[in-house]
């Protein structure tokens, strides 16, 4: 059995990125349900997984034993895994929480997005739904944790912005992580609904930053967080005054 785990913050664009690489592996990618079997394959996607045993029971209830599990963890720390007893990733040979889920291959991927665009997208989306995503100090902490794990070279990663705009980085990621070429172009990838209604150009996805929607207490936290600014720089993102 193969396990492909993706770690990302909500509204980071990770569904679009996942859709793209899964389509390049399977030809299709759907996540209608918590667990969705991919047509004519023995692959499943466990969307926003890692919460309870019920997910495992659903997989056990399938008529076949899956060959591939694609699972994404949302708003979790970079070392989170569902398949280790303590939920802390320690290495591929320790993904042994369930005796009937033994993985011969596993990969871990992180999708990261510009701090300010990710934050503003979450704030905008919060205005449209009941279920609220954290936009406070926890968001800052998790974003920093993700950025740090990338800089420490602990996980495969792709920046959402590079995926969207940089062909060379995109195909190199696909080649390095999965050993395949890009058959399905990114334009055919489909994420979840955007938090915005006016997406006309690709650049719209890169320009969500709007300082006027960021609450003043969050601005204060951001301004005084030197490490955050360091990490934004180290990942090659733009400096912004708020």
């Amino acid at each position: 059995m193969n396990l492909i785990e993706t770690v990302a913050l909500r509204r980071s664009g990770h569904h679009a990125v996942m859709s793209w690489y899964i389509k390049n592996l399977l030809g299709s990618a759907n996540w209608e349900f918590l667990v969705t079997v991919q047509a004519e394959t023995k692959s499943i996607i466990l969307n926003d997984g890692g919460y309870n045993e019920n997910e495992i029971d659903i997989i056990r209830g399938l008529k076949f034993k899956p060959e591939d599990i694609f699972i994404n963890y949302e708003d979790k720390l970079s070392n989170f895994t569902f398949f280790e007893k303590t939920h802390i990733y320690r290495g591929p040979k320790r993904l042994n929480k369930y005796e009937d889920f033994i993985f011969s291959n596993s990969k871990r991927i992180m999708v990261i997005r510009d701090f300010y665009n990710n934050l503003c997208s979450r704030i905008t989306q919060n205005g449209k739904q009941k279920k609220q995503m954290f936009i406070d100090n926890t968001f800052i902490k998790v974003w920093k944790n993700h950025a740090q794990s990338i800089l420490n070279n602990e996980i495969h990663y792709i920046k959402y912005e590079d995926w969207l705009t940089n062909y060379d980085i995109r195909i190199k990621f696909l080649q390095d992580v999965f050993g395949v070429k890009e058959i399905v172009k990114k334009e055919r990838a489909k994420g979840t609904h955007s938090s915005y209604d006016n997406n006309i150009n690709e650049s719209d996805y890169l320009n969500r930053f709007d300082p006027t929607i960021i609450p003043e207490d969050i601005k204060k936290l951001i301004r005084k967080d030197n490490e955050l600014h360091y990490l934004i720089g180290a990942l090659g993102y733009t400096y912004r005054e708020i």
Partner: protein
Amino acid sequence: MKIIEVFANRRSGHHFFMSWLVSNLSGEIDEKIKELNKITWINNDICHYNDATYHAFFNEKQVMDEIEEIIEKRPKYFIINYEESDMYNKLNKEGTSLFNQNPIKIVFLRDFLNTFASKWKVSETDLKEFYFGFKNKQHIIENIKYWKIMAKNYLSNDSIGIKYEDLLTDNGIREQFLLDTFEVNERFKPSIFNGTKSSFKTKNYNQRHKEIDFSNDFKNIINSDSELNYLIGKVDYKYNKLV
């Protein structure tokens, strides 16, 4: 003739860098640059103008005239270095031949804390008069600004960047820099050169900030400068938290 402009912060090791560069361009070990004279003819082919920004502060016209005179003599390499200077706003070059020569712009960068530690140290020793001391808060702010300017120079597409740390430790980066920029091989390694006098006892070039008891003013200023921390990350240095 190649005009080479070197931009660097004071105490960043740039004289050591220029000595290494000149030696590899000329094929002879340079002993002159560290003497810090304003104009030095290394040999008939190479001339060095030291710290043009500093001299221009007192008499810009004279600096420009001297630069013109050197250019008229057509050395093979003419190296001008500028300290603490924005590469887009250094001297009034309009109307001078330097303006039309399309110089090679090299930005030499050293990590913030160790550059600052070195400045701090010399401000307490025999170079005190030159560095004015770091008791003055405004002086700290000025020097942080200079490092930020240099980091932005380094990130510019108009410059070729090289770091002090890579010069000391990375053969590959060093060799590639010489080949790509000047089409020469490295004949002399940095280990055989001395720059200006070091301010520290320790030989460990990236731990020198630990010898300094930075003032609370300094810590407060850098802890509230988000752009500084952003730039440290952007130019790929390590994050050091000063408590």
